[in-house]
């Protein structure tokens, strides 16, 4: 465990040391951005939409007993932007991007492609890890934004259909409820989620050994550790960063 943390820390150090190499590997970075962005789009759309819908239904039923259904808009809006949007997007992307990175890099490790990169004078950090990390860090924000918006729209539709809310009123309340601090915290989280999901999954990919069994084990570990870290980072933001701001 300690050895693993040490190796992971060295990987992060190497990423920062060689960050400038992204200029030489721009095509790989764009390719990864495309894979994360477009291929995860519908997953995020569905995840965000149903999270907003469920949040509106659950809070709506509780608020209805107090005759306060007007508060659904505020609850959905703040809930999606500050917490659920980033966390749901983070968890879905931890599973999708994390599994993709670990299985790809792990298979490359097992088939000696990583050794081939090194043998021919290329750096796996520069060619494989940095493009994936940059792509995750940049693409997680727009995807989270999409999850937030469709979540609020989903909540609005439920509110209109089930609780007979007025759509313009719901939308105005949802937007007005959001303060700069909410947006800042909600949009800062994806950068951290993206960075750690990418680096953890790449780390497990590069350290794969033991054939297909080892690859399966490392892919599971990557998804589990990434998902757990998404929740831990979210807690840190909610408890510590929010109070500091």
């Amino acid at each position, binding site marked *: 465990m300690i050895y693993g943390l040490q190796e992971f820390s060295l990987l992060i150090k190497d990423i920062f040391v060689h960050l400038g190499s992204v200029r030489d590997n721009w095509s790989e970075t764009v390719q990864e951005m495309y894979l994360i962005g477009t291929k995860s789009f519908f997953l995020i759309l569905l995840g965000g939409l149903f999270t907003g819908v469920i949040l509106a239904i659950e809070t709506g039923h509780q608020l209805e007993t107090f005759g306060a259904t007007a508060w659904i808009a505020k609850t959905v809006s703040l809930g999606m932007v500050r917490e659920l949007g980033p966390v749901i997007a983070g968890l879905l992307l931890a599973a999708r991007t994390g599994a993709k990175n670990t299985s790809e890099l792990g298979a490359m490790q097992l*088939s*000696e*492609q990583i*050794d*081939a990169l*090194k*043998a*021919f*004078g*290329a750096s796996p950090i520069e060619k494989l890890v940095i493009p994936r990390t940059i792509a995750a860090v940049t693409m997680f924000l727009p995807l989270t934004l999409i999850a937030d918006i469709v979540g609020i729209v989903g909540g609005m539709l439920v509110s209109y259909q089930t609780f007979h809310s007025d759509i313009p009123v719901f939308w105005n309340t949802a937007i007005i409820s959001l303060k700069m601090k909410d947006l800042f915290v909600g949009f800062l989280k994806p950068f951290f989620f993206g960075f750690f999901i990418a680096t953890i999954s790449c780390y497990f990919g590069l350290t794969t050994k033991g054939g297909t069994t080892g690859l399966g084990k490392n892919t599971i570990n990557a998804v589990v550790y990434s998902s757990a870290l998404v929740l831990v980072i979210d807690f840190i933001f909610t408890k510590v960063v929010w109070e500091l701001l």
Partner: protein
Amino acid sequence: MIELKNISITLSENTILDNVSLTIEKGLNTIVLGPSGAGKSSILKIILGLWVPDSGEVLFEGRNVCKMTNDEILQLRKKVGMVFQGNALFDSLTVAENILYFLPDKKKLSENELRRKIDELLSFVNLSGTENLYPEELSGGMKKRVAIARALAFNPEVILFDEPTTGLDPINTESVLELIKKLKQNGTTSVIVTHILDDAIEVGDNFIVINEGKIVETGSLDKIVTSQNPFVQEFFKRFAKGNHNQFVRISKEVL
């Protein structure tokens, strides 16, 4: 040209190489022969600086690889090509892209120059016209030849072959061995790791027999064949059982 002095390496409490010393001479085909798991491939990884030994020195043209900086190792690797046992071709790239992937200064070359380079390399390995195919569309022998073409893209002084003919049919084996011979005629130094005695004898000049991480015999073919070392005798005896005619021919040639 390349010298390993008292190299020892242990991984996960397993001794991979134990006080190994050997010399690879320029322009010759050096064969590292031994059974699976003997530590043969480790020698190649240590020469390339992919693995750092626990003790000992690796001298490339008199310079210690173990003490080189990262930049120096990168420069060294441009002088040494490697053909991996599983070929290690990139699945998502075409044959041409695989060959050009590591080519230094490729951005400075024009489209025509790159095309000419690919044609030249593919023609050398008898694979002209396959530049747009993906590795999954190639046979095992073709993949091996693409891996050789990729290793040649740098014009390396030394090529390391890790089990170049394992898993290939006799026709593809023959074509890979012909390529290794052709490289020698062009002055390239080759280090060939194999457990197939037949192939080793066909292309080898110098032989290094290794077992359980230790070198048990070195020298020319006649020295190996007449070795009194029990392991080498056993190795040849087992080979002779399956290849009686070949063994008789070799023995007659040597003795």
